[in-house]
């Protein structure tokens, strides 16, 4: 019962963010790179799959850490490293994303979901950390 209420909430929230997305007609990237450009679009097309729509994370046999209200996000370099190179179950996403896109999604996540870190990561910072 509890889980079905949660499901409705998740679905409801999703429809709002889906409306803001724009890629192909159906909403997906074509080819082997993500085509979403803004941090908002990128978060809701990629990160949301595991970290969930409100960055609240999830718990099963293991867990996906919540990114909401997460003090670990204070270090922009750490977040950039995780998105670029991955760690544990977290896949390296640099193969699918440009430096600019990584910076966008890192900055978005660090300034939303109860996170208020004002310093920005730049594409040049990403270049150094991602080591393509």
């Amino acid at each position: 019962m509890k889980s079905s209420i949660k499901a409705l909430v998740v679905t409801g929230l999703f429809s709002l963010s889906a409306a803001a997305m724009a890629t192909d007609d159906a909403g997906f990237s074509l080819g082997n790179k993500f085509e979403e450009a803004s941090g908002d679009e990128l978060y809701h097309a990629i990160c949301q799959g595991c970290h969930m729509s409100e960055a609240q994370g999830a718990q099963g046999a293991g867990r996906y850490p919540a990114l909401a209200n997460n003090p670990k996000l204070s270090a922009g370099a750490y977040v950039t490293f995780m998105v670029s190179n991955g760690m544990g179950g977290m896949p390296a996403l640099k193969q699918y994303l440009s430096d600019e896109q990584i910076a966008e999604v890192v900055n978005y996540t660090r300034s939303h979901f109860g996170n208020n870190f004002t310093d920005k990561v730049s594409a040049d910072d990403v270049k150094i950390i991602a080591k393509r």
Partner: protein
Amino acid sequence: MTNHSMSRRALLGWIGKTAGAGAMYQAMTSLGFAAESSHPGSLNLDGVKKGATVLVLGAGVAGMTSAYELRKAGYKVKILEFNSRAGGRCWTLRGGDSYTELGGATQQCQFAEGNYINPGPWRVPYHHHHVMSYINEFNIAIEPFIQVNYNALVHSTKAFGGKPQRYRTVQADYQGYAAELLAKTINQNALDDSLSLEDREKLFESLRHWGALNEKGKYQKSHETSLRRGFAIPPGGGLSGKGEPSDLIDQSALLQSDLWKFIVNGQDIEFQSSIFQPVGGMDNIAKAFEKRVGDLIEYNARVTKIDQNDTGVTVDYEHQGVAKTAKADWCVCTIPLSILSQIPVKASSAMQTAIRSVPYASSVKVGLEFNRRFWEQDEAIFGGVSYTDLPITNISYPSTKYYDKGKGVLLGAYVWGPNAFEFTSLAPEERVKKAVEYGKQIHPQYTEEFNNGIAVGWHRVPWTQGCFGAWTEEKREQHYDNLCQVDGRLVLAGEHASHLPAWQEGAISSAHDAIKRLHKKAVATAA
């Protein structure tokens, strides 16, 4: 044993001794020994110490194989399983099943009686000898899985105005044109330096044979080429039965279409005939194991810590909110690395690093149920796979119950890469909706006939957090051996501890390899 195999074995022994293991492996591969997963030999787990115990973590196929074989050998075995069912990724969804993914969204599968989708593994190639040997031993009913269907479709949004083409016509025309071009180079004397006159003549003859070329080496509209690519009007009986050959696809349009990408799939060893599926769903394999080791399984057990010392292994777990502990002499851990990397494990730092080094691939499957099997009734497509450059990548038709008059289920999407992340990010019902929208471009009947669907995004699966261990060559080089060692009293098994990622054959052969080594150590270790 034949003289032939004796001499090969003797030769390999000699290479191994003089040139080392690397050369040995290379030699084995070139002699056709190591190219595929080997036949499971006898496990020879004899000499088990009286009362020796093993704790198996995970009741997927790797865990249940381990438990089945270890108990048979004389070990006392217990299995801890997170789910309330056995099988892990060897899993089938049928009408009436309920599935709750991470994030809490619950889907009720509404398929009609007898219809199903395998969200995980769905094929067993004939040369996956470990899986096949258990299918044989447990008498699991199997049937052919149709991989290549010449009457299925290949589709590109950027070619032929988005109109799907028959696999058969693309295959025949690509092969025919390629043969024609090579034949032309012979006639232009371009191969005179590379081949003798006799070889050039033989090559020309073989190209005619291979590509259905005429006596001049041309690939053109004819009865012969239509025997490959199909007729405009198929030959039949009586006065109305005169056949009409079909027009070829324009050569440049064919090359530019990229559709040739899709016609080699069936040539990969994993997709060569014969391939099988258990009748009624892949989880019949899991159920056959469960029938034999189910009494050893404690379900709903979430492992929280794996500890060990010189005398044994201690595993902490939660069972319906209650903290519990299990102890054993030895441990076979088949928990996916995506989960295991979050659990404190007492092991060498090299193994711990290995456990944390393998990300899990993103993949999504969508099962769609339609009111009727229009692909059979309207298009004569019986089983097999249509390929597309759309995000859904595949439409796979059921290899069973042909011409059934009831509802039918397609695999409506099998998604990888960036699109798999995007699909996973959607709510389940949106994933289904997208699969229908895309599939319509290939089969317009979707609009009328769609009934219901179910979608599994593997990163949302609570017990794996991903599809399979996505090794790279570099990571394998660095970490694979460390991952697979018997570390103290612990050994890992599963597809992630194999060179056959994502395949059940990898999971089962890994279990065999792991328990053989663990047993050897157990026998050699003072109690």
